[in-house]
């Protein structure tokens, strides 16, 4: 009893209060999104709001269970849990039930469970264990690869399912590595490549080439502090391109604009390289190398998309990014979502008075698009409240994570922060039309047991570690 009391005393009640605020406000909006004129009260378990009450009740129990377990349990069993998890993910591929084309669900007694959700906290545990193991040094190549392997294994298995959203979520674990000393240069490079990857899919290759060329040109002008040289180079490239384009047109040899652009760039690139060696202008050569790497990357992404992936996989990715239309029309949903949020105005239409979000035009109104209901019924005040709630919650977790003496606890805390942050960014960004539609839930708000339980467990494992912060030293 004594020890348990100490846990209660050491728990961070501010965080718990924020957590309770989020799930109750979330439930209110799920209720509003699903309310029909005729239903059997809030305990109507055939309705989503009724079911969500069960999920919330169960998550309270889960939270307590997480607190009752000894903090050391999480540290000692982290690898074992991780191995069990990989087994389960393999199992779901074989025995799982297919919903919406993704074989990622177990059906247990009428309820659906998505094991890929539970993979998140367990991966964070395993990662924390690895990074705190004896003599681990993140700046060493093979040590880093180990960390990558732990992060990458679950999404690899999930990708077979195939659920692109989950894969994106796991990339957030790179942020944890960043906090633990992962080179910021490599981090920026990875971010740049990620950006390039998406732009390759989104834009015409020729246009992308033009953009990259312009960036390179401007960079080199700034570094050389000279406008003239760059302008001459640009003129040469433009003239060459014009000639090639004309020849291509006259001879009707159907080279793509991208190929013509590459051909036009080559002579200038060769001249710069030769001059670079001669005049020892290594900075300029580095910029040029960056351009070359980017071009190679574009070509390989393009090749992989068109030749390695099967047509239905390509389609899935394109639909996810909102490039191709699917039968339900992704573009249309985003518009509906924006209209719903936009029509809320400053103070909203009032609770339960929303009209747009209840339209079936926004198909995932209580899961992925729950933020629409907030926007429509509570207006700018409501959406700001939710965003401030998240910002406050995340900042509070940072404070908690930084006060740990145990690196394990801190790393796990940052794992939690990273995962919540990416969900928050992608989900809200998608509903307000800033990011493409990628179906991942808004933590603690969206309807669904698996995600609510996952995030609750994630949070309370961390709070349990935090409660023992004075005892844990590793």
């Amino acid at each position, binding site marked *: 009893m004594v020890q348990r009391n100490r846990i209660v005393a050491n728990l961070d009640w501010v965080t718990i209060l924020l957590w309770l605020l989020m799930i109750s406000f979330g439930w209110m909006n799920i209720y509003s999104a699903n309310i*029909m004129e005729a239903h059997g009260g809030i305990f109507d378990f055939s309705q989503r709001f009724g079911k969500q009450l069960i999920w919330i009740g169960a998550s309270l129990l889960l939270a307590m269970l997480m607190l009752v377990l000894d903090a050391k349990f999480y540290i000692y069993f982290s690898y074992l849990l991780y191995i069990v998890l990989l087994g389960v993910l393999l199992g779901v591929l074989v025995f799982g039930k297919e919903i919406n084309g993704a074989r990622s669900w177990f059906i247990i007694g009428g309820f659906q469970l998505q094991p890929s959700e539970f993979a998140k906290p367990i991966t964070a545990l395993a990662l924390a264990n690895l990074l705190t193991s004896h003599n681990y040094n993140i700046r060493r190549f093979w040590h880093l690869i180990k960390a990558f392997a732990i992060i990458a294994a679950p999404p690899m298995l999930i990708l077979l399912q195939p659920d692109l959203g989950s894969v994106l979520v796991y990339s957030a674990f790179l*942020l944890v590595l960043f*906090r633990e000393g992962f080179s910021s240069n490599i981090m920026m490079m990875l971010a740049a490549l990620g950006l390039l990857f998406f732009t390759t899919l989104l834009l015409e290759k020729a246009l992308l080439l033009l953009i990259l060329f312009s960036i390179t040109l401007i960079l080199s002008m700034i570094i050389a502090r000279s406008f003239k040289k760059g302008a001459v180079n640009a003129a040469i490239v433009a003239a060459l391109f014009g000639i090639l384009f004309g020849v291509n047109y006259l001879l009707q040899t159907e080279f793509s604009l991208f190929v013509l652009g590459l051909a036009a760039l080559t002579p200038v690139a060769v001249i710069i390289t030769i001059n670079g060696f001669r005049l020892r202008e290594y900075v300029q050569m580095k910029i040029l190398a960056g351009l070359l790497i980017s071009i190679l990357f574009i070509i390989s992404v393009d090749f992989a998309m068109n030749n390695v992936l099967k047509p239905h996989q390509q389609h899935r990715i394109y639909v996810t990014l909102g490039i191709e239309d699917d039968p339900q029309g992704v573009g249309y949903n985003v518009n509906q979502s924006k209209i719903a949020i*936009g*029509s809320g105005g400053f103070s909203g239409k009032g609770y339960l008075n929303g009209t747009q979000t209840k339209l079936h035009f926004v198909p995932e109104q209580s899961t992925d698009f729950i933020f629409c209901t907030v926007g429509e019924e509570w207006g700018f005040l409501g959406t700001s409240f939710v965003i401030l709630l998240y*910002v406050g919650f995340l900042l509070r977790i*940072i404070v908690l994570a930084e006060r740990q003496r145990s690196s394990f606890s801190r790393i796990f805390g940052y794992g939690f922060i990273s995962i919540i*942050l990416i969900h928050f960014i992608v989900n809200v960004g998608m509903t307000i039309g800033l990011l493409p539609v990628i179906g991942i839930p808004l933590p603690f708000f969206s309807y669904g047991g698996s995600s609510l339980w996952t995030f609750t467990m994630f949070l309370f494992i961390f709070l349990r570690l935090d409660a023992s912060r004075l005892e844990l030293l590793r």
Partner: protein
Amino acid sequence: MNQYRDRRYVFAAAIILVGLLFMIRLFHIQVMDNSYEQYALSNAQSVRTIYPARGLIYDRTGKIMVYNKAAYDIMVIPRQLETFDTTELCAILKITRESARERLSSAKSYSYRVPSVFMKQVSYENAALLQEKMFQFPGLYVQTRTLREYTSPIASHALGYVGEVDQDHLDKDPYYQMGDYIGVSGVEKAYEEYLRGQKGKDIFLKDVHNQAIESYEEGKLDVSVEVGKNLTTTLDMELQAYGEELMSHYVGSVVALEPKSGEVLALVSAPSYSPDLLVGRSLGVEFGKLATDTLNPLFNRALMAQYPPGSTFKTIMGLIGLQEKVITKKTEHHCYYGFYVGNIHTACHLHETPLNLIEAIQNSCNTYFINVLKSILQDVKFASAAEAYDNWRQHLLSMGFAQSLGIELTNELNGNIPTSDYFNRIYGENHWNYLTIRSLAIGQGELLATPLQMANMAATIANRGYYITPHLISEIEGEESIDEAYAKKHYTSIDTSCYGPIVDGMDLVINGGAGSTARNAKIEGITVCGKTGTAENPHGNDHSIFIAFAPKINPKIAIAVYVENQGFGTTYAAPIASLMIEKYLTGEVKRTWYENWVKQLIQPVAPARKKDSIVNDTLQNN
């Protein structure tokens, strides 16, 4: 690691930045920009689904079989309803107020926001009238759809019907919405994805009078409608109609194929029903009636009825015997009123003796083919009867028996050829021989085949050794070719040279004079080759069977006829096949007296006197 402690500020800054960015964006779309509010306030967008016309279906000669007529559904979105003059609405639609109230409450119980059907398929006049007064009835609108119409009430089993999509499909395929139509059976189901086309979507703004005023975002998000693809079936409308007419007094099936292409010329299952019955509003009621009919007209006998092949199977026995070189066409066997070994006896009818292979087919001699089975199973090439039997069965599999052939329709059954394991289980290993299973030699016993498989067998013999999977569609609009599975030649495991004597025997069955079992199937000027059969039926009278192809050289048609409970093959099945062949090859039927006899307009006695042979034939055939 604490040397990186400062990186926490990067995290904090990123979080605050994201929050700030989101709030600016939200401030912009929620507070600054009023256009979203207007869209929503005027309840503005409406999505109008445009249903494409379903693809048309033509017969092989280019005559239209299935087309569309427009139908108008009155749809309701309960949430948009305002008080209106119910009396006027009821007057236009000619329904009672109670009925209107019921319809509304059922729509509400489905959904307040999703349109549901208020009234199905109202007349053009009513729909037009309602359209004019639509401003009085916010929440209601007219939805144009297409329904199937048929130029002739035939081929319902092959064509199938179109009905409202069920929950199962709604769950599986997001293309469909409640109330949409989908091919439920037949060609309509098999080629649904071609026939249905692509639904269009118009998104537009409405004014307060419930009228469309402009398209939303200049139609950027609209989906254009694509009309369904037209199909050409392999069916010959006239032949199909003629087959159905001939079979109208009987229960059974007729399947006619073009041997060299595997195209189905006619697919008759009797009793049939008019495809018009299963269209639109009447579908539910009529389907119920058909489903409870004791003769089961919905049952597609051509693909699903499994009968013993009867004596027609003797042709196959001959083929396998020749292939295994256990007989030649000169092999003779004696027969005196049947087959006797010890106290085992299988009866046969009176005919000359001894007979060679060709004559045995002509006379349909039971004894002969039991002896063929004996030679096959006692072949010294094999270690045991079971092994020889398995080899025999393998030949049958190569001819398409005991498996669904793969016609487009999904309800095709397999038929049955028992395995040696089956007999091992019943009689014990090595405790059975040709005597135990002698009924197989004459097409009885455990053998089962569908009429389609029988027609395919006739086509295989006509082709002298190969068949092409029977199929119903020869052309899809906009596609270069149909599924290549319907072009592939399936060669049987029997050499082409073996077919000659069998074809000669089948020629004599009809054109051989005395001793021939189906002289009545003869057509002047055309060499028809055929074989009669009778399937023993434990439930009642035997089934009458006939398979045939014509002409003998370069056959144009192969046919199988089953007439349930009508006794010997010669009696009805052979004349029906003969008339069908005459109709297809010459375009008209000159033997009208014969036609009338098949249609039972005259008693069988009358032509029997005139042609004297028919009574004898019926006795002769097994």
